[in-house]
């Protein structure tokens, strides 16, 4: 009987009338991990102090920023980059503090490029700034073994690609179908990032093996595919786009259900596919009802009733599928 208790257990004991209310706080004090709270208090004090100092420095530069000559502005940011990179090297690039400092240097590089663009009014499109930013920080990325650093880099190229699609492709080829295709094409960066992540893990790069490195790109890619398909459904164009989205989401379900078993990723793809199936059903019902010879109020009432039935049905199947899939996906995990 050496089971560890937590606060929730105490509430459970109180509900079962085992622990008297008058002794609840005493029990909570006895269970409290005082060493943790001492450490927490120290860190909170340090965090608060450093946040104050940092905010003070930012306020100081904000006060003088407008009056500073361009080269002083560049020098301040460049000094930040050099300091961060050097500190990262001194602390150790592969330690958490070193990784954070190197990410800081990468972010400051983007700020430097933005300030250069602001001072000289280069007239370049925004996607060029992001593309250049990603290219400049590539050497740091190659020596870094931080998944967070790679995620920042992927985010920079995701923004660059999305801006390129919006500022160049959609302007050169205007039209609703092209808009939808661009929403889908924006999913390319997260899909490529996901593929590279899986290859890196298969190549035994364990530092890339965190669950979030799989879920985040999958979530972004799935939302793009769903948005593209939903747009096509609403505009009644590009049936192929709906089929493509369903196919890719189904493929993701297959991959994370069988080949690389991971329940959270499987559930993500499954949820987006279910949403797409529900939306398709609603659209088909709505199209069918447009031609029904019924008064408006009754038509809408009947339409909503069928939509409720369809939604509950899809949710029921989804719940059953996830409940059944969980044990065998969990068993299949290495």
């Amino acid at each position: 009987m050496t089971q560890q208790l937590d606060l929730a257990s105490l509430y459970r004991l109180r509900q079962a009338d085992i622990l008297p209310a008058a002794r609840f706080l005493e029990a909570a004090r006895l269970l409290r991990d005082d060493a943790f709270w001492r450490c927490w208090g120290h860190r909170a004090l340090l965090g608060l102090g450093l946040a104050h100092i940092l905010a003070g420095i930012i306020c100081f530069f904000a006060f003088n920023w407008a009056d500073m000559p361009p080269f002083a502005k560049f020098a301040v940011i460049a000094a930040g980059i050099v300091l961060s990179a050097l500190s990262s090297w001194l602390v150790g690039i592969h330690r958490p503090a070193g990784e954070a400092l190197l990410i800081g240097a990468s972010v400051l590089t983007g700020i430097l490029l933005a300030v250069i663009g602001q001072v000289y009014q280069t007239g370049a499109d925004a996607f060029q700034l992001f593309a250049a930013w990603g290219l400049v920080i590539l050497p740091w990325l190659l020596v870094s073994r931080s998944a967070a650093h790679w995620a920042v880099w992927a985010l920079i190229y995701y923004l660059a690609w999305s801006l390129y699609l919006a500022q160049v492709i959609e302007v050169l080829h205007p039209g609703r179908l092209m808009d939808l295709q661009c929403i889908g094409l924006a999913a390319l960066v997260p899909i490529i990032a996901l593929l590279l992540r899986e290859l890196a893990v298969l190549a035994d790069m364990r530092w890339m093996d965190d669950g979030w490195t799989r879920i985040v790109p999958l979530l972004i890619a799935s939302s793009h595919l769903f948005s593209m398909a939903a747009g096509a459904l609403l505009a009644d164009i590009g049936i192929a786009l709906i089929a493509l989205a369903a196919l890719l989401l189904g493929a993701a379900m297959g991959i994370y259900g069988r080949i690389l078993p991971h329940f959270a990723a499987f559930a993500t793809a499954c949820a987006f596919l279910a949403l797409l199936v529900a939306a398709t059903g609603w659209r088909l019902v709505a199209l069918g009802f447009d031609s029904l010879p019924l008064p408006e109020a009754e038509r809408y009432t009947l339409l909503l009733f069928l939509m409720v039935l369809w939604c509950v049905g899809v949710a029921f199947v989804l719940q059953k599928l996830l409940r059944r899939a969980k044990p065998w996906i969990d068993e299949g995990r290495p």
Partner: protein
Amino acid sequence: MMDLQELCAHLALDGSAVREALAADDERRAQEMPWYVKGVLGIAAWIASVLVVAFGIFLAASLFASWEDADPFILIGLVFFAIGIWMLRRAKSFFQEQLSTAITLAGIGLAGCAVALLADHLTVAALAVSGLAALGIALTRDGTFQALSGTLAAGFALVALLDGDIPALHLWLALPLPVGCWLLTYPPLRRDLRPLAIVLLFAAPLALLWTDPGFDLGRPQIRDIGVWLARAIAIASMAWLLAPNLSPGIPRGVILIAALLLGIVLPPAGSAGLVILALAFALGSRLLAIGGIIVTGYVLNAFYYDLDTTLLMKSGMLVLAGGVLTGAWFLLGRKDTAS
């Protein structure tokens, strides 16, 4: 930190009864789906509930001739409430729980809005919503429903308070704080009211921050010394209650005086943030600590933002305060190492 055996011995609890109560809970937790699956099913249930509510309203509209009168909407709201509670009491899956929660809340909201229109008085609507929410909480045991119906009732009450031009508004807004504190530290028998307690606990600072962070000392309400004193007494009484758990080494009198001073000096939301942090420590709750830090951080941010001075002066104050805090961290660290 004690384990189960030591705790039972220290508090003279029946070990076998404790084990039995906790085993049932462990079994229930083991059968639960992961949070993200619950999230997906919850979203599906809420989408379905929007359609159900729309369907109900259209159905009622085809039965009642006029959309203009508020009376039918009270009836529709009450029907939704009754159906939702009935479903919630019989819910067997997470999807059913969320669907019935959403339908019940829609019923409460609809009835509340219709009462507000009919009576032309927000206080009556707030009372109706609070009554329905309390009835729902008494009849069911669902945590999500408890939290959301509490939030809905708190929202209606806040709007009614702001609309009513009530004297000593800060005191009314701060009232849920001691209630939430009490529910968490003296939990009732047979019912888990933690979701409601947490809503009440955070309703006060959020309402205070929304209405007025409290730094504008020129306002008549802020200059009312009675309000400040009453708040200080409220905070001090809570500190008195929590004193043995905060630090057994420090006498109650010292904690009491510190709490009184904090209550007088700090703006209301700042005091509420500190109460939440003290409660987090007394209970050993990391979740409450995160909430307390967010509230306190927001108050600090509002304080520096509202300061009527130059950025250079703010910069100096921030660096000075940061230096004092970092110095305190250094000295405490050295003291700990030495001991």
